[in-house]
C-alpha cells in the first residue's frame, strides 16, 4: 500500500487497523514517518533527534511479533514522537536547551518504557521550549532548534512548551506524541495546532525520567489527532510507578458505545476578550454539545489569583531544580533573552511567599473541586486566540493591542487554575480563526475523570469533522 496523506494523518486506531490487516507493515509505516519527519520536521522547528535505528529495530520487532500472533495492544507498531525532556537511553535528551544538547541518560523515562512495552515505535525526540519555559520565555523563538511553527500557517507559533509535539502531530509526521504540561504546555500547542490532547490529573502518569521543572505541577500527556486516540495512548502510559512517589490511580479506555447524557457547565465570561472567531466557534460547539448534554450556562469560575500562585510555585521549584545550572551561568547560553536572566529572578523568590502559595493551594483546590463535582465537565475555549505570529515578544505584538475598558470582564484563568489544582483537561479542535489557524474547545473535570472528559470529547468528534481537517504540508 502506498503511504500517503490518508495514512500520515490517520488516527492511531486506524493505523492499528491498517497494521492489523497487514495492509501495511510497521517497518513500512515507520520508514515513511521517519522520512517525513526528517524532511518536514526541521522546517517546522519540530525535530531535535531522529531515532531511525531504534525505530526500525522496534518496528521490525513489532512486525515479527505480529506475525507470530503476539499483538501488544492498539499501539503495536505505531510510530510516535516524544518531547525532548523524556530520557531515552543512549539518545541525547536536550530539554530544548543549547547548553544541554549533548546530554545523554543511561535509562528510559517510564512513559517511554511503557510505550515500548505497548509496542509503539519511537521515531524522534521532538523540539520544545528550552527548559519547558521554566526561565520565563517571552517569545516563540525560545528553543535551540528555533521557534516551533504551526503546520496550518508556519508564520505562526505552534505553541509551547511542547512545540514540536504539537507541530509534528498536526503535520502528520508522527502517529501521536507525548508532551508535558506545567501550566499550559500541552493544551496550548494542541489548541494552536488543531489537535486533541489530554492534560492528565497530576500523578496519573509517572514523571520518572522527565525533566523536572516543578515537582508539584509537572504532568505528561498525549497529543493526538482524535480524543479516542488520546484514550488509547493515555491508557498505555498511566498508572502507578514506584520510581515516582506521586503516582496514583489507573486509567482504562473503552470507547463508550452509547454514552449517557452528560451535564456540562458553561463558564461565565468564557469568551471575554476572545477573538471573534473563537467566540463564534465556541457558540457553535455549545450547539453540538446540546445534542448529548445538558448545559448549565453562566457558571461562575472561582475568582482566585491562580496565575500569581502558579508563578510563585514555578519560580521557587524551578529555581531549586535548576539552581546549579543558573548559578554556573548555564542559563546565560539560552536562546531567548528573557530566559538568560529569568533564573536569577526565580532564585530571589522568598520562601514564605512560596509556602503561602502552597498553603493557598489547599482552599483553592477545594473550591474548584466543589464546583467540578456538580458537573461531568466545565467547558470554555482552550485559548482566547489563535496562534500568535513568530518574531514578536508576547507582550509586544506587531500591532498595538487595544486595552479593554476599565472593569471589563476577563475570561476565567482555567489553565493556571487547572494546573494548580492538578485536575485534568481535554481539548479538541472546534473550527478555524484568523489566518487559517485552528481554535479549540476545552473540557475540565474532577481529578481522575479523564474517561468522562474523553467520552464527551469523543461524542463531540462523532458529531463534527474538525479533527479530520489536514494542513497543507510541503514535504
Amino acid at each position, binding site marked *: 500500500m502506498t503511504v500517503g496523506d490518508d495514512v500520515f494523518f490517520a488516527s492511531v486506531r486506524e493505523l492499528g487497523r491498517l497494521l492489523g490487516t497487514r495492509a501495511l507493515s510497521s517497518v513500512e509505516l515507520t520508514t515513511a514517518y521517519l522520512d517525513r519527519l526528517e524532511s518536514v520536521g526541521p522546517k517546522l522547528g519540530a525535530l531535535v533527534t531522529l531515532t531511525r535505528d531504534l525505530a526500525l529495530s522496534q518496528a521490525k520487532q513489532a512486525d515479527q511479533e505480529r506475525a507470530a500472533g503476539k499483538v501488544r495492544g492498539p499501539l503495536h507498531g505505531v510510530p510516535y514522537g516524544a518531547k525532548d525532556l523524556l530520557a531515552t537511553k543512549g539518545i541525547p535528551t536536550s530539554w530544548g536547551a543549547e547548553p544541554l544538547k549533548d546530554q545523554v541518560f543511561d535509562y528510559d523515562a517510564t512513559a517511554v518504557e511503557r510505550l515500548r512495552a505497548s509496542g509503539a515505535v519511537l521515531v524522534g525526540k521532538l523540539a520544545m521550549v528550552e527548559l519547558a519555559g521554566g526561565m520565563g520565555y517571552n517569545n516563540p523563538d525560545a528553543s535551540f532548534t528555533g521557534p516551533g511553527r504551526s503546520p496550518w500557517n508556519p508564520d505562526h507559533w505552534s505553541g509551547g512548551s511542547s512545540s514540536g509535539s504539537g507541530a509534528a502531530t498536526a503535520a502528520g509526521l508522527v502517529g501521536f506524541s507525548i508532551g508535558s504540561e506545567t501550566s499550559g504546555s500541552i493544551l496550548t500547542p494542541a489548541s494552536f495546532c488543531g489537535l486533541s490532547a489530554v492534560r492528565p490529573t497530576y500523578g496519573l502518569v509517572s514523571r520518572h525520567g522527565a525533566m523536572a521543572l516543578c515537582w508539584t505541577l509537572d504532568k505528561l500527556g498525549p497529543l493526538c489527532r482524535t480524543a479516542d486516540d488520546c484514550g488509547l495512548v493515555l491508557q498505555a502510559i498511566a498508572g502507578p510507578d514506584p520510581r515516582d512517589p506521586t503516582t496514583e490511580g489507573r486509567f482504562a479506555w473503552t470507547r463508550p458505545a452509547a454514552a449517557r447524557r452528560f451535564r456540562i457547565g458553561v463558564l461565565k465570561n468564557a469568551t471575554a476578550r476572545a*477573538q471573534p472567531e473563537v467566540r463564534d466557534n465556541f457558540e457553535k460547539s455549545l450547539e453540538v454539545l446540546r445534542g448529548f448534554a445538558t448545559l448549565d450556562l453562566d457558571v461562575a469560575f472561582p475568582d482566585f489569583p491562580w496565575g500569581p500562585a502558579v508563578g510563585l510555585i514555578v519560580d521557587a521549584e524551578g529555581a531549586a531544580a535548576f539552581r546549579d545550572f543558573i548559578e554556573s551561568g548555564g542559563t546565560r547560553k539560552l536562546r531567548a533573552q528573557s530566559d538568560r*536572566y529569568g533564573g536569577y529572578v526565580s532564585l530571589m523568590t522568598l520562601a514564605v511567599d512560596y509556602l503561602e502559595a502552597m498553603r493557598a493551594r489547599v482552599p483553592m483546590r477545594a473550591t474548584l473541586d466543589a464546583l467540578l463535582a456538580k458537573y461531568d465537565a466545565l467547558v470554555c475555549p482552550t485559548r482566547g*486566540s489563535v496562534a500568535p505570529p513568530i518574531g514578536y515578544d508576547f507582550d509586544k*505584538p506587531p500591532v*498595538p493591542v487595544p486595552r479593554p475598558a476599565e472593569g471589563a470582564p476577563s475570561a476565567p484563568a482555567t489553565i493556571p487554575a487547572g494546573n494548580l489544582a492538578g485536575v485534568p483537561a481535554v481539548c479538541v479542535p472546534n473550527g478555524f480563526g*484568523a489566518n487559517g489557524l485552528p481554535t479549540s474547545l476545552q473540557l475540565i473535570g474532577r481529578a481522575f475523570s479523564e474517561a468522562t472528559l474523553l467520552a464527551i470529547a469523543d461524542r463531540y468528534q462523532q458529531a463534527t469533522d474538525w479533527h479530520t481537517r489536514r494542513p497543507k504540508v510541503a514535504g
Partner: protein
Amino acid sequence: MPTPRRGFLKSLAAVPLLPAAAAAQTPSPSPAAAPTPAASPSPAPPGPVAETLARVVEQRYGSQLEAADLREIAKSIDESLQGAERLRKAMKLTNADEPVGTFRARPPARAGRS
C-alpha cells in the same frame, strides 16, 4: 493588576488580545470590551524591596550579568513580589492552614526519582 512575570503565564494573559490585533489586517477590538486608546501606561519603577533583591543578585552573580539584565531583573522581581502580595491579600489563611504536601517521618519504601 500586575502582569505575571513568566512568559508563558504572560502569554496566557495577553495572547487572547494579542493575535486578535496581530493576526488581523487591521486591529479589531475585543467584542467584550470597548477599547480605550492603545497607549500603555508607563510602568512604575521597581519598589525598594525589588531593588534590594536585585542588588543581592548583582552581589552574587554580577559577573555573569550586564546592566540591562539587572534592570530587567529588578522589574521582574517587582512583578513577582506584587503577585505574591496579591495572592496574600486574596487568600485569608489561618495559623493552622498547612501547605500541600505533608511531611511524614517514615520514609517511603522507594522515595525519589533516579
